[in-house]
């Protein structure tokens, strides 16, 4: 019996050993398969994360990335941007339900050194802006490389680049392909061509996609948004199925993107804090703290020792040899000490004048209100909010019950997707627009033929995703946005109040004109009254009802007075805007003002566009 049992146990053990050996062998095999992928490989497999999740978005994102790069390059070089862009269908695409699309963007920027072309267009995370804390459109150096990847993946063609710097005699041209394995750009078909402008860059992609013109995610909405927030830009565009057009700049100064300020200690984590120290080499800790951070002064250093119990010797030691425990003590002390909030000098705004001038370029508008809030600290980051609200004349109608068109911007880049969870939309829906004269369903966007444009500018915008489509809705940010929207709503209400009163008066007069004669005529008919009696009654009725309109006439006069004084204040606030207006274009909120929007492009065309 015992022998049998031993045999059984031995057999069982042997089976278990075999199974373990198999597991070990599998683990070893899989361990051998662990490899390191390049950044390019990662993005190539996850292009949906950076805005290429559908054929429609692919076209829009490519155009957006190319245009952002052009505008950033021009602004960095202090050049007033003049952009030409083309989006055209070439034929059916290789992917299902797509067309092959050609996207061409040309700027008059400083041009790119031929040695940098491969990096700019063919390498991920190669950027002059990464982590610099400036309000530039591009930040990480992902977007345009992703566009190149999409073009390669869908049409097996790279990006055709032509670029000329001021010093070069001819323009450098090449096709940029990507070596995804090594995250490197490869140049081919290199050469030189004549270029009519002293400097500039053009990029051309052929990719599979689909052109969507209208709607929130449409190309026209994108172009309209870009025009609004870039008053200093001249744009010529040609898009399939849309008449070509040119939009001239309305501001002749290049916005200067403020230099980044040093980081604020309270925005850092311990690891970042220690890494930051390594950038400074051998330096006394006290000096490092004052040079490497904003808002750290001698007084703060004294407080660290006297109030927060930091040992003086920590501040006197060299930062590169500071032991970890002392780093931790220093970090804890500095987090606890009182510091001024971060400086707001690093934010960039379009300005009320610029917005006012620009808003006339996006359509035929009745009236508008613009507002630039002062820069504030929000979630411990400097930030500025700007709002422009305009009523579109062409979409006005009695039964216009559509939601207002919301244009969202982050660092002057339009956001066109995932609207519902965005801080801007949350702020708009939280405002009671009815008190400013707009219709609004409960907890919804207001209704009517309005454009509500909201721009958030900050060197550190908290996006919810890598494709930068939505701004995270923190309570502080939503509150700041709400304040901006409410202030703009108050300005808008001056126009609407006058309009409502005028409408009410018109309605009353209409009412009298409609029903007065019927009443008198019917009474006359029942009584068989003479014409004289009827005439006397008509005159009497007119006198009675005239008295009834007195009150509303007074209200209208009051509303007009309030609007006039608001317009005076607006004229002084928006001096630049009103200087540029003709005598008859005074934007009084009446139907008199009708500024010309976009003008059609000249037939002849220019250069390569």
């Amino acid at each position: 019996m015992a022998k049998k049992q031993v045999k059984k146990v031995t057999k069982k053990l042997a089976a278990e050993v075999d199974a373990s050996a198999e597991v070990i062998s599998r683990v070893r095999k899989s361990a051998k398969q662990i490899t390191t992928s390049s950044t390019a490989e990662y993005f190539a497999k996850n292009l949906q994360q950076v805005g290429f999740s559908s054929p429609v978005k692919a076209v829009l994102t490519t155009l957006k990335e190319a245009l952002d790069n052009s505008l950033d390059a021009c602004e960095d070089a202090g050049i007033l941007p003049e952009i030409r862009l083309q989006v055209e269908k070439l034929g059916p695409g290789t992917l299902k339900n797509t067309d092959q699309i050609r996207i061409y963007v040309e700027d008059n920027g400083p041009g790119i050194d031929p040695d940098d072309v491969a990096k700019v267009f063919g390498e991920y995370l190669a950027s002059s802006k990464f982590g610099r804390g400036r309000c530039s459109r591009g930040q990480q150096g992902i977007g345009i490389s992703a566009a190149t990847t999409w073009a390669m993946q869908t049409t097996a063609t790279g990006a055709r680049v032509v670029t000329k710097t001021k010093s070069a005699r001819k323009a450098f041209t090449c096709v940029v392909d990507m070596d995804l394995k090594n995250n490197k750009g490869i140049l081919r078909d290199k050469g030189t061509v004549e270029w009519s402008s002293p400097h500039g860059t053009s990029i051309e992609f052929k990719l599979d996609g689909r052109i969507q013109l209208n709607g929130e995610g449409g190309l026209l909405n994108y172009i309209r948004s870009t025009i609004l927030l870039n008053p200093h830009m001249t744009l010529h565009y040609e898009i399939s199925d849309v008449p070509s057009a040119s939009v001239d700049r309305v501001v002749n100064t290049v916005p200067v993107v403020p230099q980044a300020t040093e980081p604020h200690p309270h925005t850092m984590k311990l690891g970042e804090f220690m890494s930051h120290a390594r950038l400074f080499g051998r330096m006394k800790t006290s000096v490092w703290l004052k040079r490497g951070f904003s808002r750290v002064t001698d007084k703060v250093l004294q407080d660290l020792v006297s109030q927060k119990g930091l040992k003086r010797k920590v501040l006197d030691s060299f930062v590169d040899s500071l032991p970890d425990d002392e780093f931790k003590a220093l970090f804890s002390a500095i987090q606890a000490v009182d510091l001024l909030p971060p400086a707001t000098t690093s934010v960039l705004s379009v300005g009320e004048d610029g917005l006012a001038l620009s808003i006339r370029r996006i359509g035929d508008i009745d009236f508008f209100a613009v507002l630039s809030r002062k820069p504030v600290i929000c979630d411990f980051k400097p930030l500025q909010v700007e709002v422009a609200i305009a009523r579109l004349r062409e979409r006005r109608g009695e039964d216009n019950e559509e939601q207002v068109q919301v244009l969202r911007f982050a660092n002057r880049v339009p956001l066109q997707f995932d609207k519902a969870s965005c801080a801007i939309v949350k702020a708009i829906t939280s405002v009671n627009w009815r008190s400013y004269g707009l219709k609004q369903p409960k907890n919804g966007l207001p209704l009517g033929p309005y454009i509500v444009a909201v721009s958030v500018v900050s060197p550190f915008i908290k996006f919810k995703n890598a494709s930068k489509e939505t701004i995270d809705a923190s309570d502080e940010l939503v509150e700041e946005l709400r304040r901006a929207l409410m202030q703009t709503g108050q300005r808008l209400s001056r126009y609407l109040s006058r309009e409502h009163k005028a409408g009410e008066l018109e309605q009353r007069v209409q009412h009298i004109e409609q029903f007065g004669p019927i009443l008198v005529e019917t009474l006359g008919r029942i009584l068989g009254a003479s014409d004289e009696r009827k005439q006397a009654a008509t005159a009497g009725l007119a006198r009675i009802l005239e008295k009834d309109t007195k009150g509303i006439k007074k209200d209208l006069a009051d509303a007009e007075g309030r609007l006039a004084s608001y317009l005076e204040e607006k004229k002084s606030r928006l001096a630049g805007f009103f200087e540029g207006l003709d005598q008859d274009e005074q934007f009084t909120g009446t139907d008199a003002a009708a500024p010309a929007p976009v003008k059609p492009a000249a037939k002849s065309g220019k250069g390569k566009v």
Partner: protein
Amino acid sequence: MGTELCERMLSDLEKAKRPVLTATKCSLDNSQYSPKVGYLTPGNKKVSSELNVSSVKKMSRAIFMLEILLRNVEIANINTKRELYYVAKGLVKHETKLRPLDFQDQDESDSVIDFICEMMEAYREELNCVADDRGGQTYSKQLVVVETELDGTQSTIDLSTLGTAPYQPKNRPQNLTLRAKEKIDFCLIIESQGTANTLVANGFTKRHNSILIGAQGVPSNAVRAWVKRIQEQLRVPLFFFGDLDAYTMQNIYRTLRAGSAASLIRNSDFCAPEVKFLGVLPEDIAKYDLVDYPVKESDLQEARALKKARDALSNDPFFKDKRNKELRGILDWLVKNKRRCEQQSFISVDPRDPQMMEKIIIDKIKNGNYID
């Protein structure tokens, strides 16, 4: 009356004076009740409507409709409210200048007609505007009705010749003269038309010299005037038999007997103060072992009726009058106990006896088991 009103308005307009239209306030707070009179009468409160920008549309519509009504009276034409709505719509569509008056639905034209009646303190029927014939279907083996038509023609209807079919009283029962072929012992007005039918089908009118009327819920003007006619011309005892609930007590029985606040100006011609409340009475539940059940307060209609009953106890002059303390007691019982009992519960006392309801009714009448 109508032309006087128009004359006043036109004359005011000639003098650039705002015409003011005044009407009796038809609401409970302007209702008075005296047991001697027997129905709700109006107090002194008036409502005025002055011509201004806001009311010019309403007044134009009223005068426009008044013209149609006055013409109807002149040519002895009768229309229902619905017909008047379409007549008005047709005229408006035909004449471009009248377009602003257009009625979107019948409610709008109905309210204009009511406004005219209130202004003129006239019954709708006096302006030859009648409702559809509804309710009041009457059965009797003894009753004879003589109808005088507008052209003076007289028709005689002997109800005993109709078999089990009912006689439908007209919307202007003032044109009817009644007589009894032989002595009629009582008139029974039943809340439910169906129950009246059942009693007749089971031979009630064959066994009892009576008049049986199905009220069909809240009595229409026609039913109210018809019962008043019976009271005045036949002098027979009248009994109302209906559910034991707050709605029946206030909206059906009270209206039949003493009128309503909304019709203060015409209660004198549309009430029968001698109608007694036969039941169902609270004590009947125990006496006849009736099935009753609690009021469903979650039901919007029942909850509203209860609330109205509470209001009636404190504000309704009919229920506040000491002569009606027994009726008030029933309303109070209903509010406190929140129970109800249907008239049909008499059937279920003995479901195998088709005459059980009849037997209980007769028993109650004989024994004086009702509220005067």
